[in-house]
């Protein structure tokens, strides 16, 4: 049983780490603010979700696991708001979205 839990938690953590890595590379490599936000959203939703689920499986008791899982919706709400605010501001100051190398 514990072996199964450990294994699944390991897999979830690995998937989470993968999304974090992908999102970070996207943040560094993408050409404009809108695409970078897009990359970051992956980190917060899928990446963090997987990591939290993986950690919850390792928790000592149910209360601890629930507290860990509670982080997820809170971060989701915050990141959605912040992402929206940044994109809106970028639009307000007339930042044009990237349309390929000719832009």
């Amino acid at each position, binding site marked *: 049983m514990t072996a199964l839990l450990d294994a699944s938690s390991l897999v979830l953590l690995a998937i989470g780490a993968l999304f974090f890595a992908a999102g970070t590379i996207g943040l560094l490599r993408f050409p404009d603010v809108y695409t970078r936000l897009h990359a970051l959203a992956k980190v917060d939703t899928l990446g963090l979700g997987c990591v939290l689920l993986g950690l919850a499986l390792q928790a000592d008791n149910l209360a601890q696991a629930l507290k860990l899982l509670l982080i997820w919706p*809170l971060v989701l709400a*915050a990141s959605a708001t912040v992402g929206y605010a940044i994109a*809106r501001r970028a639009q307000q100051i007339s930042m044009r979205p990237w349309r390929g190398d000719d832009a």
Partner: protein
Amino acid sequence: MILAFDALLALGLVWCAWRALSVRDLTHAVVQFVVFGLLLALAWARLAAPDIALAEAAIGAGLTGALLLDSLRASNAGAAPSPSGADIAVPTSNLAGAVRLAVWAAAVVVGAALLLAIATLPPPLIDLRAQVAGALGASGVSHAVTAVLLNFRGYDTLLEVVVLLLALLGLLACRGEHDPVATAADAPAEPLARALSRRATPVLTLTAVYVLWAGTTQPGGAFQAAALLAATAVLLHITRIVPAWERLGFARRLGAAAGVLLFLGIAAALLAEGALLRYPPAYAGSLILLIESGLTVSLALILAALFLCQTETQ
């Protein structure tokens, strides 16, 4: 492996601090500083100091960062664009250059001496940890940091909350009588941010109460709870739900001072027990919780006022 992580984090801290102090653009510098604060919170967690990590994230990075950003916004909002990066410019005279060089040379010497002193440090003669552990049972709380903060060294804390109240006094004193207060500027509030801050308020308040209550047995306490409440007020302010505080009316002054007064009063009353802040062991727990509850309200009001009463510079 874990030491490698620590080394990376330590390097990151120094790098972020260096960037915050050296990049040309001040906005960039402040953002860099907030990142520094968040990394610092991680470092505190690594040093087995979750109380400090909480305080650093909420006060050091959070509130200080918000204050700094708001000051930048206020100074950039006016007509005259201040050359925000001018301070890093090349020294104008030879003398200024020489002074700069001398300061840096002194800094390198002091830094090297510090590192050498750290490397040659003898083992300490006294171990207070054993004494703290020994006296913990009589302190009224079971969390060691809270016991030191409110009992063994409660007198420090008493003076420290006066320092915080003093900062508010200083802010009010240097503000002109008819100065406009900060009226978070031009653009209308983000609708989504408004919705979020409305919904977050009850959650944050509840969390603050939990953090206060938890402080007696585990990391948390009045300062962290107050920082959460103050952050709520700041959030409500920057989303234009709560206006700036034109003046600090009697009720707000009373609220900001009541916790401090309560702390002072309890400290004085306990002189009857033979010494300042000498809690009778049977009542220590309740008295500490009473002080912490009062402090949470007052510190939250003070911290919020430090943000909501700043002058507008336009």
